[in-house]
């Protein structure tokens, strides 16, 4: 019995350290609607700065002073980033800020490496709390008791701050209706800045408080970011109390889960999130998201099929692409093939996000299912490449139909997070089911049939399939089905009022997007010759999002251009620099500031400047 109590208290300590970080993310999202991907980076910075400050400062006062100072320093950095970068893009389409914070994360990762070096840094233990106390006969770290006290304390302070101060009232008002608060004369800018600073402060505090438990390392950011995002979503976005409960539930389930299933940790949080979201579509304590008003006067580009001149350009581009093997070497063809594959992947995601208004954080799942479907068809069933290129997309389609059925019951960020949960569940299956998928060691020897083996033949094959895929996606966008989909995106209520079945239409679009992502994945398997769980991992899903956002969500061709741009840039940068993350991060930040509507969006808005006031067009 004592043991179970001890395990419970151990779980509580983990929960509190998780909550400290997650609460900051929750607050930031609640008010600014920013999914702050850089939250993990601030957490990591908190640990590093804390490490640097605890070195010269000693004694109890020095240690705690250093922790607090570290959080303040990092909060100041965060504030600066908010003022310089995020303020410029609050008006950009939803989630565009995600792209900016992703760029910031990349930059911080390389800067941390440059400043603090590559080695893990072991900080000091907390003075006076180094040892263990006897808890029902078992030794329990004293420091963990402090964390357990700190969690509820921070929760209480936040409650007081939000319920008992004018600032808190304004923040809550802004959470519910930003435009109304602005109309009442509140300076939103500083409200947002102060909220962001508070959120970053909590992230950095959480990071610095980890010092006595673990070493500061430059992988801390990505270790924590998905987990806190999941906790925030389980709790209900913007609801700090919900976040607290979610942290406890996740940590306790893990603490006890590993006693029965020692391998459960890898997928547990995502299982919990999927179950919670299926039962409660807005998290434990969350409420339905208010329908955001579209800011009046914002130029919305009307979607049009390509005009005749555009078709000519597209035909010319396609011809030029088809002629590439006559001038390019093997390596360039190889890169071009990879870029084409990502064009299809991004186009399929863009179909979901741009036309459907359904933001997926887990699109890599279908790419990966396509890869594994193709690889298994080849390896397990001995089919040829041709059959494998059909089997892959079919597996992706099946996955999308299954997962999509659950996902379309949700909306907004909850939809996005449920797609992420399913992607992670699919990933962990690929990762764990060694007998079939080869686990982390993957499946090898997935090479094209002899007739397609040469780089130029495989390039043509890819070009044909990607060209056809993109064309079909465009045809769907401008078909009656596409109009229904876009109607549901622009005004769900009105579209349903004229008899459109929201779930059915969105479910169908989810399946279509999954199918084409899987086709890209199948081609990718044959390009690389091997398939690994990486093919359905979070970084690939993020890459897809970055491509779509970079190209421009509100445009028809954004995904295509974004993919071509991002993929060629990242291949080129990683091949030519030592600090690829820094360069790529800076480039993303610059592009975000220059083109808040995405590259294609910026181009089309520029072209529309001379157009009649009805707004521009996108094609």
């Amino acid at each position, binding site marked *: 019995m004592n043991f179970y109590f001890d395990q419970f208290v151990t779980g509580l300590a983990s929960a509190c350290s998780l909550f400290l970080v997650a609460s900051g993310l929750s607050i930031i999202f609640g008010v600014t609607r920013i999914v702050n991907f850089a939250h993990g980076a601030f957490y990591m910075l908190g640990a590093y700065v804390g490490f640097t400050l605890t070195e010269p400062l000693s004694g109890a006062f020095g240690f705690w002073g250093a922790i607090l100072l570290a959080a303040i320093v990092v909060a100041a950095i965060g504030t600066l980033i908010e003022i310089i970068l995020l303020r410029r893009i609050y008006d950009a389409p939803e989630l565009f800020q995600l792209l900016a914070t992703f760029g910031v994360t990349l930059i911080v990762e390389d800067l941390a490496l440059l400043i603090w070096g*590559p080695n893990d840094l072991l900080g000091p233990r907390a003075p006076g709390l180094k040892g263990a106390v006897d808890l029902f006969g078992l030794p329990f770290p004293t420091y963990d008791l402090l964390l357990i006290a700190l969690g509820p304390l921070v929760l209480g302070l936040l409650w007081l701050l939000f319920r008992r101060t004018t600032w808190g009232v304004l923040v809550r008002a802004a959470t519910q209706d930003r435009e109304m608060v602005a109309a009442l004369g509140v300076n939103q800018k500083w409200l947002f800045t102060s909220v962001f600073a508070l959120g970053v402060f909590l992230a950095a505090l959480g990071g610095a408080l980890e010092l006595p438990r673990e070493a500061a390392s430059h992988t801390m950011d990505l270790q924590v970011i998905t987990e806190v995002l999941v906790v925030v979503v389980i709790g209900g976005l913007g609801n700090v109390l919900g976040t607290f409960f979610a942290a406890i539930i996740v940590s306790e389930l*893990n603490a006890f889960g*590993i006693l029965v299933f020692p391998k459960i940790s890898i997928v547990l949080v995502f299982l919990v999130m999927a179950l919670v979201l299926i039962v409660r579509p807005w998290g434990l304590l969350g409420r339905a998201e208010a329908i955001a008003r579209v800011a009046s006067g914002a130029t919305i580009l009307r979607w049009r099929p390509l005009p005749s001149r555009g078709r000519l350009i597209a035909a010319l581009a396609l011809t030029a692409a088809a002629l590439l093997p006559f001038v390019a070497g093997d390596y360039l063809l190889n890169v071009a093939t990879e870029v084409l594959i990502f064009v299809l992947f991004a186009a399929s995601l863009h179909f979901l996000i741009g036309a459907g208004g359904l933001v997926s954080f887990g699109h890599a799942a279908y790419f990966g299912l396509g890869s594994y479907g193709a690889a298994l068809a080849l390896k397990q069933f001995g089919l040829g490449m041709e059959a494998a290129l059909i089997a892959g997309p079919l597996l992706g389609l099946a996955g999308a139909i299954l997962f999509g059925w659950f996902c379309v019951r949700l909306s907004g960020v909850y939809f996005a997070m449920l797609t992420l949960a399913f992607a992670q569940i699919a990933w962990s299956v690929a990762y764990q089911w060694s007998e079939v998928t080869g686990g982390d060691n993957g499946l090898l*020897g997935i090479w094209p049939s002899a007739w397609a083996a040469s780089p130029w033949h495989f390039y043509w094959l890819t070009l044909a399939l990607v060209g056809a895929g993109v064309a079909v996606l465009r045809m769907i966008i401008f078909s009656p089905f596409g109009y229904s989909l876009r109607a549901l995106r622009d005004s769900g209520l009105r579209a349903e009022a004229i008899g459109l079945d929201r779930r059915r239409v969105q479910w169908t679009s989810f399946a279509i997007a999954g199918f084409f992502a899987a086709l890209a994945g199948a081609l990718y398997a044959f390009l690389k010759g091997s398939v690994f769980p990486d093919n359905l991992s979070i970084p690939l899903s993020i890459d897809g999002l970055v491509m779509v956002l970079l190209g421009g969500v509100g445009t028809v061709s954004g995904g295509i251009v974004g993919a071509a741009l991002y993929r060629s840039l990242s291949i080129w940068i990683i091949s030519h620099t030592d600090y690829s993350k820094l360069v790529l991060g800076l480039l993303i930040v610059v592009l975000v500031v220059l083109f808040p509507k995405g590259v294609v969006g910026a181009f089309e808005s520029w072209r529309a400047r001379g157009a009649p006031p009805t707004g521009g067009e996108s094609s």
Partner: protein
Amino acid sequence: MRTSSTIFSALVVIAGLADLSVQAGAQETIKIGEINSYSTLPAFTEPYRKGWQLALDEINDKGGVDGKKLEVISKDDGGKPGDAVTQANELVSKDGVVMLVGTFFSNIGLAVSDFAKQKKILFLAAEPLTDAITWSQGNRYTFRLRPANYEQAAMLAEEAAKLPAKKWATIAPNYEYGQSAVAVFKKLLSQKRPDIQWVGEQWPPQGKIDAGAVVEAIAKTEPEAILNVTFGSDLVKLVREGNTRGLFKDRSVVSFLTGEPEYLDPLKDETPEGWIVTGYPWNAVAIPDHAAFLKAYQAKYNDYPRLGSVVGYSTIKAAAAILAKANSTDSEKLVDAAAGIAVDTPFGPVTFRKSDHQSTLGAFVGKTALKDGKGVMVDVTYHDGGQYLPSDEEVKALRPQN
């Protein structure tokens, strides 16, 4: 918009120039393509890079191979197998390297080895530990330097069998490396000691251990000895929680790789004492070749070598030896030369076995101890890798024969 088109044209121009500069490169050198996870694992790959650069300088100072200078073109794989294959392709198709070397992660090593098989180019895997790379997925074109997972497990199982402990528990990261390490260790130890019981196991996700809960869960099974396979940031957390909660008190611990400076040094004054580990005690190695290596390394970098430095150094030495023996840059001749070749490394001469292309590089086994607030290895002995590998006959059954 004008700005963006300027950026585009600038990028196109830069890309074009980069291509030209490569093509204009001189042809008097022999090019070796090198790939590793530089941006993902700098703590391991930086010493590794220093190691191979030292070897490269030494070789070229002596006139290179057959009068031609060696040139290493190094690429970062970003920690992703797919990107590693792209880089391998660039090295082979564009830069015209004669062989590929490097990689750290097992899955990246496997991806590149399969690429090497497809493109018929020699690949010398430096660091990946998975047994699959030389056995179940082995191929004609792939060789591996570092002692495989199996060898490390065999060395540790030998020591573990001498312990009185009968009840064992295991903690390992939940992926192929951890799984196969535990599986082989269990098999080998149980063969030697049929009386042993396996009472508990924990499989934390790599990089995300919930150390407190894992420590309590293991303590509950009341083992007499523990096998640990976690490393890096997980190891730090495990050690801290384990020390505080008294998990390691009066228990024997056997631990993979913990004696490597890469993993031992971050533990500083919290290094647990008396763990039986594999590793590299750089300042206590009694091998003559090592003394020269250590001196040169410290003179060049004013830093002590990590295990990665030895691996990087030996990799390029091995590559040069293969090139010299083959007296050709033809892939088939290189592969023929590499099979069975003897190479001098800081740990003494090693051989790349003909049967499975695994080198006989060994590892040091010893105990962890604290000295001047730092973790060190004591009671160290060098275990030759060749002694722990299965015989050529057994390997035949493990490796696809074609």
